[in-house]
């Protein structure tokens, strides 16, 4: 028993999950159990915990893609803007503002929006892998330009849609569970399987640790980067669809605003090295749930929303400290000097 716990506690995903459970537990205690109450209305499950998963689904999807980008030693700060583009395209098609020939077909709108996300990802990937621009600068281009592109698509207006089929993407239920949860499980599950059941994960970690030596060992580093930025773009497009279906329209200025930072935060909480190398997508999922859990619980407890940012900042400090070698050394040397002191006293 003890050894199993020992083994688990060494796993990267252990502490993020523990922290997430602590957040849930804290809420449960403060709200005297109210937080955990689930109700079934029309065969649909409602409750705060379900809210975390539904509202957090976007962030989880983004964090999964971001994990791979960060594992290469890069970053993708354009995901929020890609979400805006994808939402703008999908809503404009459903509302028959663009491509009226499709007759507002939701399926076509979703596919085209995802293709747009893939195109954005490819663009980022080309800049990083082929033209060798630093990732933060390369993806900043789309961060800035993306919302402009989205506004060009919507003519600068907020496009509202009336389509139950489109609303389903965020508000739908299957087997009593919210639909975004299924999207999340499908996409992120596929990604986890792809990275761990093939050699992709190992090669990615190798590239993240030492791209030059990886190249010499036969890894096509630029193809790999291209693929990873493309996946990140595609995932961002899906997140954009969920977001716009949730607000029933495309708001180019606010869709996915600043969410790239939350996604990076989620990965960092998960313990993936931001400088590249070892990564864990499950740990990033737990990290995203922690970020979402904080937001949801602050709202649930009726604390002013401004505290969310302060709490996140606190969290960042804690993570930085827990990952800092210097900080650990400080602790260690204090222990050592205590021991030394003890020896001298003898």
């Amino acid at each position: 028993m003890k050894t199993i716990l020992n083994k688990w506690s060494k796993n990267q995903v252990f502490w993020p999950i523990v922290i997430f459970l602590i957040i849930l537990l804290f809420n449960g205690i403060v709200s005297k159990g109210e937080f955990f109450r689930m109700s079934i209305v029309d065969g649909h499950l409602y409750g705060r915990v379900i809210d975390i998963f539904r509202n957090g689904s976007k962030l989880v999807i983004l964090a999964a893609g971001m994990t791979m980008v960060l594992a290469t030693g890069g970053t993708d700060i354009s995901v929020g803007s890609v979400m805006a583009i994808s939402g703008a395209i999908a809503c404009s098609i459903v509302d028959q503002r663009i491509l009226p020939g499709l007759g507002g077909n939701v399926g076509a709108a979703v596919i085209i929006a995802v293709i747009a996300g893939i195109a954005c990802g490819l663009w980022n990937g080309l800049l990083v892998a082929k033209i060798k621009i630093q990732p933060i600068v390369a993806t900043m281009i789309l961060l800035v330009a993306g919302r402009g592109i989205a506004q060009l698509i919507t003519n600068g207006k907020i496009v509202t849609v009336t389509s139950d089929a489109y609303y389903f993407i965020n508000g739908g239920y299957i087997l009593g569970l919210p639909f975004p949860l299924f999207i999340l499980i499908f996409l992120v599950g596929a990604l986890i399987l792809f990275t761990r059941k093939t050699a992709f994960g190992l090669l990615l970690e190798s590239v993240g640790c030492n791209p030059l030596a990886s190249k010499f060992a036969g890894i096509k580093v630029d193809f790999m980067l291209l693929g990873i930025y493309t996946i990140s773009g595609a995932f961002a497009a899906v997140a954009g669809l969920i977001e716009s279906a949730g607000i029933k329209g495309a708001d180019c200025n606010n869709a996915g605003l600043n969410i790239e930072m939350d996604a990076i935060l989620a990965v960092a909480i998960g313990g993936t090295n931001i400088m590249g190398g070892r990564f864990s997508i499950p740990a990033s999922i737990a990290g995203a749930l922690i970020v979402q859990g904080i937001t949801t619980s602050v709202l649930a407890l009726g604390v002013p929303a401004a505290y969310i940012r302060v709490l996140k900042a606190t969290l960042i400090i804690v993570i930085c400290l827990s990952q800092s070698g210097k900080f650990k050394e400080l602790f260690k040397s204090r222990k050592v000097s205590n021991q030394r002191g003890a020896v001298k006293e003898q």
Partner: protein
Amino acid sequence: MGNENKLLKMSNISKAFGKAVIALDDVELELDRGEILALLGENGAGKSTLIKVLTGVEERDTGVVLLDGKEIHPKSTQEAQNVGISTVYQEVNLCPNLSVAENIYIGREPKNRFGSIDWKKINADAKELLKKFDLDINVTKNLDHYSVAIQQMIAIARACDIDAKILILDEPTSSLSTAEVKKLFEIMRKLRSEGMGIIFVTHFLDQVYEVTDRITVLRNGQYVGSYLTAELPKVELVGKMIGKDYASLGESTVTKKDSVSREEGEELIELSNVSGSGTIQNFNLKISKGEVLGLSGLLGSGRSETVRVMFGIDPMQKGEIRYKKSPLHLKYPLDAIRKGMSFCPENRKTEGIIGDLSIRENIMLALQTKKGIFRKITNKEAQELADEYIKKLDIKTPDADQLIKNLSGGNQQKVILARWLATNPELLMLDEPTRGIDIGTKAEIQKIVIDLAEQGMAVIFISSELDEMLRCCRRMIVLRDMKQVGELSGKEISEEAVMRIMAGGESK
């Protein structure tokens, strides 16, 4: 002799990294005033760690360090410097984008009466200082304007100028020319006569006998002993360093070479008129199975450039490469790997190891890329592979889960070699496979190379050390200034012949 007479006395020093890797185990070291001490040992013997403990880079777990009879506990190189321990590291660790003078006086800039930095004095002093080292260079130019050798001299000058009691030179000569080494030794002798204690770490045994007074030997993190240089014959020294008799090791490889059969194997790869972009010109080369071909030449003569083109790292501008008689087009190293080629690059740290991955992962990497990402090597297969090569190549590690960066240089090199042998290659290209590696491992690697060739592998061998080349290669192509200038085979190969061609004589 009492402790108070010793300048430095380190005793019972132990240091472990994690639980598994014990770098130093109860090691001692003594240094007198006005003495040059050679600190010797194989790679992984613990020399670097001992130096790091002394200079405050690493903290010792146990032990006592007495400087002038007083215990010191430096926690940073700065602290070590303040108590009088000055160090020159193997790799130049100055700032390439600052001027030479700035580099020399960084952190202790002389101020003028207004409290701002006195640039005139800095530049004049720097020039004066470097003159002592016979370096007459423009000290206001950026450091990276000068060659590595000059940078190394500047680093040494800086270390000597700091008011130090102890000067540590960690393999300072590996990038210096003979004349520069001579100059360095003159300065070392001068500093010795001024009463400074010098610790000199090197792989070159000739230099040990030329300049040092005493020798301290470490092996596998343990203290072997200290000896007066004049009283310890070289053969015995080598024996103490590697823990076995070097003479027999050397013989076994030499006899191997002579017993290699002379008949030609099947032709494997042929380069005709190959030129790289801005590198090698009109290169022709043929190699057959079971042959060890040497590429000789000075640094920058085009040795590495040739194999880089052959492995698809650098683009080929013109010419043709034929592999088993059919034309070969290389876009990526993977194209070469799939054909059966392999390449241990020159810079182990930056081009070879994936530092944060385990030994197992480092070994399986090339085989995995060769198989493609969808045919994943299972954990069990990877473990077997790793265990097999750890045993076969005698890689010194507790298990395959250790991060490769925790291994010593020689063992890292063996892992890289294992990585390529795991792909079952037909052609093995080794660029400086024994650089910075101790004699014992060096001989082991040479033996592996010769054995592999006997089993039918074609090997291209590049090394700056001529006697290593003579020991391993049956045929040798000599390069100069990116051009092929001569080819020697069999009995023609001799130190004089190779050097003559390298230096610009005729090939006959």
